[in-house]
């Protein structure tokens, strides 16, 4: 008992120190067998990577399907179904594939399968992967284990894109057999550690071990069950009653008590997404840069981190998270709240902040309101139901709007769509020719050092211009009972179950 207490204390201390760069928790020899139940914070819509757009879907996919590339906990690109790669020619990427890999339905994974999958993603009527793969012109199959991706323009982010859904390989046989209902019952479609068994929407999704998984000895578990529990308090209750073993999120207010409970494990590492709010640079009052800067100066990020997030996560100074290779630790343009400086920059104006009725969002809005009041800025809170708020923010019908981003592995995914002129997520209507040039250069340049410099320059300019006020980076966490071992924390929030075992 004392020993358990000591280990727990160590855990809490480690977690309190910020967690570091992920890594796995190993204690003892991995055991085979058993099943684990994982809570998902919302129900899935599809099991087909082609039409997926939800984080929870990606999480399940990573356990059924294999991607061409993978990442390690430091976000470095690693080999997946692609064993070796040569990207020295920016328009022709040469990939060597793993040999002997079979999909769960027994059909082989090979060059032809890669080509068929990429073409399906590029041309499928309901495909949401078209923009991911826009730079890929064609895939040429040299032989069973070699393919060449011909690009229409250089794209330094392609390998990172192929880690995610656009790079997930499916048995085309299984897709054809599944027909119209394939997205609901993808039997035998993946080559990953677990195979689809049954999906009873709003109740459970069951996967079983893939006995022929190409990574020898894996997975350890006989199966994984997912349960959608769309309420963080209910997730905590389900953890405590033992109905689920693992969860990705609980309410920040409950983290301290869970850490103190010896029946549970809580560890976290900074994630790749950012939190904050958009200011609409295309309309008054925030078409005046001074007013945007005044807001960015007046808010207290440390108070938000402490009072809203219960110190879970870290303060954000820009869109590139500490886990990224492009992170710039020296950039702290807007740090501690400075109401006096804000007042000197712009004061005496008022604006409306759009948010949802979620209690945490409401508390955040009230905190922002009081902080801005100290700088003579009046903020009105407008609470809207999610679908309404989402549409109005996307349609630029707002002055300020709280929107967070789940994050992408490559910094391009955290910046280009948001602040490039006319970008898909540029709700703030921000436009700066120099920023556009940096972002484009970083997207096409093969030299990582040069890319990093581009992102650092672009980030400085964006933060300074304040079309978005960054408040904090969230965390990727292991939240489980103590029976769960071999859990590796990845900053991309995905829970990969292949190496997890139950003791």
């Amino acid at each position, binding site marked *: 008992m004392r020993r358990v207490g000591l280990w727990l204390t160590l855990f809490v201390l480690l977690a309190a120190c910020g967690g570091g760069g992920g890594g796995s928790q190993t204690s003892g020899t991995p055991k085979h067998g058993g099943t684990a139940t994982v809570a998902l914070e919302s*129900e899935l*819509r*599809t099991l087909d990577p082609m*039409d997926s*757009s*939800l984080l929870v879907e990606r999480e399940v996919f990573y356990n059924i399907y294999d991607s061409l590339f993978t990442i390690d906990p430091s976000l470095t690109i690693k080999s997946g179904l692609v064993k070796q790669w040569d990207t020295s020619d920016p328009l022709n990427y040469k990939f060597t594939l793993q040999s002997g890999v079979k999909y769960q339905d027994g059909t082989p994974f090979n060059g032809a399968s890669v080509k068929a999958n990429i073409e399906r993603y590029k041309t499928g*009527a*309901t495909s*949401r992967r*078209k*923009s991911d793969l826009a730079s890929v012109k064609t895939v040429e199959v040299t032989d069973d284990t070699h393919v060449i991706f011909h690009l229409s323009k250089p794209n330094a982010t392609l390998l990172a894109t192929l880690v995610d859904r656009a790079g997930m390989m499916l048995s085309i046989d299984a897709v054809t057999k599944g027909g119209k209902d394939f*997205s*609901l019952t993808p039997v035998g479609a993946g080559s990953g550690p677990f195979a689809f068994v049954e999906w*009873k*929407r*709003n*109740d459970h999704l069951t996967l079983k071990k893939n006995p022929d998984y190409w990574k020898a000895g894996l997975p350890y578990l006989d199966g994984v069950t997912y*349960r*959608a*529990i*769309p*309420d963080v308090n*209910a997730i905590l*209750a*389900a953890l*405590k*009653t033992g*109905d689920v073993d693992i969860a990705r999120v609980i309410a920040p207010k409950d983290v301290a008590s869970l850490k103190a409970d010896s029946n549970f494990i809580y560890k976290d590492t900074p994630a790749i997404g950012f939190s904050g709010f958009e200011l609409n640079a295309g309309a008054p009052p925030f078409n005046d840069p001074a007013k945007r800067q005044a807001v960015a100066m007046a808010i207290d990020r440390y108070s938000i981190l402490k009072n809203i997030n219960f110190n879970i996560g870290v303060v954000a100074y820009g869109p590139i998270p500490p886990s990224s290779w492009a992170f710039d630790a020296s950039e702290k343009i807007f740090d501690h709240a400075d109401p006096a400086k804000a007042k000197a920059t712009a004061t005496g104006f008022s604006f409306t902040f759009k948010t949802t009725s979620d209690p945490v969002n409401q508390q955040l809005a009230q905190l922002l309101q009081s902080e801005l009041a100290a700088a003579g800025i009046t903020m009105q809170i407008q609470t809207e*139901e*999610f*679908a*309404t708020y*989402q*549409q*109005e923010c*996307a349609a630029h019908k707002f002055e300020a709007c709280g929107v967070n*981003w*789940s994050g992408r592995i490559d910094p391009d995914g955290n910046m280009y*769509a948001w602040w490039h002129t006319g970008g*898909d*997520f540029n709700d703030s209507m921000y436009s700066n020719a120099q920023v556009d040039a940096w972002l484009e250069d970083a997207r096409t340049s093969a030299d990582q050092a040069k890319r990093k410099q581009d992102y650092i320059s672009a980030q400085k300019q964006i933060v300074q211009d304040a079309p978005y006020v960054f408040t904090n980076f969230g965390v990727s966490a292991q939240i489980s009972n103590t029976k769960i071992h071999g859990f590796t924390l990845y900053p991309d929030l995905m829970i990969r179950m292949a190496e997890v075992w139950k003791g």
Partner: protein
Amino acid sequence: MTTYVLRRVVLMLPVAFLVTVGVFMLIHLSPGDPALIVLGEDRSPQAIAQVHAELGLDKPLYAQYLIWVNRIVHGDWGRSITTDEPVASAITERLPATLELGIAALLWSLLVAIPLGTIAAVRRGSVVDRLATGITVAGVSVPNFFIGIVLIFVLSVSARIFPFGGYVPFTQDPLESLRHVALPAIALGTAGTAINMRFTRSSMIEVLNNDYIRTARAKGASWRRVVFIHALKNALIPVVTIVGLQIGGIIEGAVVTETVFTWPGVGRLAVESIFNRDYTVVQGVVLVAAFSYMLANLLVDLVYGWLDPRISYA
């Protein structure tokens, strides 16, 4: 009798039409775009246009409605906008869960309400009567989501007597099924218990004052026989009305309870579909709810005739 039932069923059609037109207008008038919900962080102008075209949302509203009606008439309920699941199977898959919860809640409310209401009426002014009245006032006043949260906290999280959420079909494991349905049924049924008990009590008091009760007593029938055989059957007529409305309202009542208990029923489906602007599913659920309400009313009218032979529909 058959003509009466047929006439009633035919009359349901215009009502269903008006309900669906109303709901169609309401949900389309409310802001929000299903394409944005579907696409989430993958939204781009091209993708949004693609989704609009896939779903026919680029057509005028009346055309969208007519397309939907045409499909329904041909037995095609369409597919969910957000999940691509066929609407008919989305509803029929969840219906057993909702029915089990609804029936369990109704049984809970009747098993408690009728005996308690009868005792309260017979022993008017007694401690039992006052206690029952007090409990019912509390039962009606406390919202069912709050009762649900308290039950979860006390009996599931703390005492661990009942599991939290999750649904086990009755046909699969009856005992486990009852364990799972207990808490949501109590949460959902408590307000009904209170109402049913009040109705039983007041109706029973009224019936007990009738001449025929005095006659029955005078003829030497025992008090127990008078109350349970002579009085209760007649006293239950208003209760049947209210229970009928409760049956029709199972889907409506389950909306909140199913959300609190993550119960995979039609109520939760309705809530999620409304939040996701899943027009086809909302329309389907509303149609089912409207018909179940109307059917329940018809059933009530037929049960009247059984309870009181003087009521005839011939």
